C-alpha cells in the first residue's frame, strides 16, 4: 500500500519488469482488465544493471494494477513515477 498519494500529480508510473517479455505479458494482462498499460524502456538511471523494461500505467491506476498483477502471482515490483518535467521518483510501496 502507498502512504504517499502525491503520485496523482505525476504523468505516468512505470512498473519495472525483469525483461521486455514480462513487460509485454503484464501490459496485456492489465489491458485485458480494462486498464491503460503499455510497454516501454526504463530510463537508464532507473535500470539497476542497465537496460530495463517497464509497464507504463496511469498514476491513478497503479494501485489496481499492482493488485491485479499480484493476484496472478507476479511481483513484488519497483514502481517509478514520472513528473511533468521528466523527473522520476521511486514510489514507496
Amino acid at each position: 500500500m502507498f502512504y504517499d498519494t502525491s503520485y496523482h500529480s505525476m504523468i505516468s508510473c512505470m512498473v519495472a519488469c525483469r525483461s521486455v517479455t514480462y513487460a509485454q505479458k503484464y501490459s496485456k494482462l492489465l489491458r485485458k482488465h480494462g486498464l491503460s498499460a503499455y510497454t516501454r524502456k526504463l530510463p537508464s538511471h532507473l535500470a539497476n544493471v542497465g537496460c530495463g523494461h517497464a509497464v507504463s500505467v496511469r498514476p491513478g491506476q497503479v494501485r489496481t494494477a499492482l493488485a491485479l498483477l499480484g493476484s496472478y502471482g507476479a511481483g513484488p515490483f519497483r514502481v517509478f513515477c514520472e513528473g511533468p518535467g521528466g523527473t522520476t521518483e521511486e514510489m514507496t510501496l
Partner: protein
Amino acid sequence: MIYLDNAATTLPKPKSVKKAVGAALRESGGAGRGGHAAAVRAAEILFETRETAAGLFRMRDPERVIFTCNCTHALNIAIKSLAPRGGRVVTSGFEHNAVVRPLFRLSRENGVKVDVLPTPLFEPETAVELFDMALRGDVSLVVCTHVSNVFGYILPIERIWELCRRRGVPMIVDAAQSAGCLPIRGDAGPYYCMPGHKGLYGPQGTGLLLCPPPAGGGGVLRGLIEGGTGVASADPAMPNFYPERLEAGTPNAHSIAGLNAGMRFVVERGLASPAGRPEGAPPSGGLIARLERSLSAIWGVTTYAAKDLYGQSGVMSFTVEGRDPENVAARLAARGIAVRAGLHCAPHAHRTAGTLPGGTVRVSPGAFNTPGDVGKLAAAVRRL
C-alpha cells in the same frame, strides 16, 4: 512438382506465412533493444508468437516458450543442460542424430553413459515395458522421440513420462514430427523440442523449446551461447530467468513472424497430421492409409505401417525389392515427385527396424497434398 517430403520441411507454406515474413521484414527492428516503434513491433511479434505457441501447446506461461534456431538447437540446449557428468541417459531405438550426436559427444567428453533401448517398431507396449525396466536402475535423463521421422511410429511418450515422473527423472521429447500434428501439453512435465519449419508451417531457422513449470519436473536450463539479451546489460552473467536466459543475440523476428502465422494456420485447420486426417480417423490420416493400400499392392514393395494405423503419424517408409532406395527416390524425382531416401539422419531407427544399410524411401504428405498426389506416386512406383 508433387512434394511429399514434408517431414523434412513443409512446402508450400501458407500464404499467411509469406505475408507475415514480408511485413516483419518491412516493419520490425531489434526486439527488446530499442524503445522506438520498430523495436516495439519486433518485441510484439516475439511475444505474440510465444502466446500462440502457449495456446497451441496448452501452456500457462508464454515466457516458457523459448525460441531456437531449429529442433536440433533446442535438443542440444536441453540435453547438455540435463545430462550430468557421468550420468546415465536412456533413449528409444528411434532417435534422430539431433539426439544421438549430442549424447555421443557427452559420452566422449563427460563420461555420460547412453542406453539405447531396443524398442521394436510399432510396439508401444514393449516400449513402455523396456523403459520401465531401464528406469528401475540409476537413470539421470530420458530422451525420446514422439514420432519416428523414418516410420511415423508414435511412441507412447505420455506413459514413458509417467514412469519418469514417478522416479523423478527428467525427460526430453523430440517433437520434430509431432508438433502441429499430435496433441502436446507443454506444461505436462517433459521438455519438448520442435522445429518451426515442419508441422508448424513456419520458415526454416525457427524452433521452439517448451520448458515445463518447475513443479512439473523442470529445472533451469543453460544456453549454448551467451550474449546480449536487451536486459540487465551491465551484468556480465546471463539473466537467470526464461526466456532471455536461453536467447542470446538478436532473435530471428522476421522468421518468427512467419512461425506465428504458421501456428495460426495449424490452429485454424485443427491439430492434424500433415496428411490431413478426418476427425476420428487414425493419426496417420487418409493419405497415408491410401498410400499404404496402393503401395503394398505392388509386387516387390514392402511398406512399413502400423497395423491399424492408430500408432502412426503422417510419415511412411517403403522399400522396393532389388532397388537401392536412393535410386528409387532419384527416379521419382525425375518424374517430378519429391520424397526422401536413405537413413534420414536416424541410423538407430533403421538399425532397430532392420532396414540398414540402404535405409528406406520415406513419404510424408502435408496440408496441401491431395489423394491424387498419392495416387500418382503409387503409379510411378508401379512403373519403376
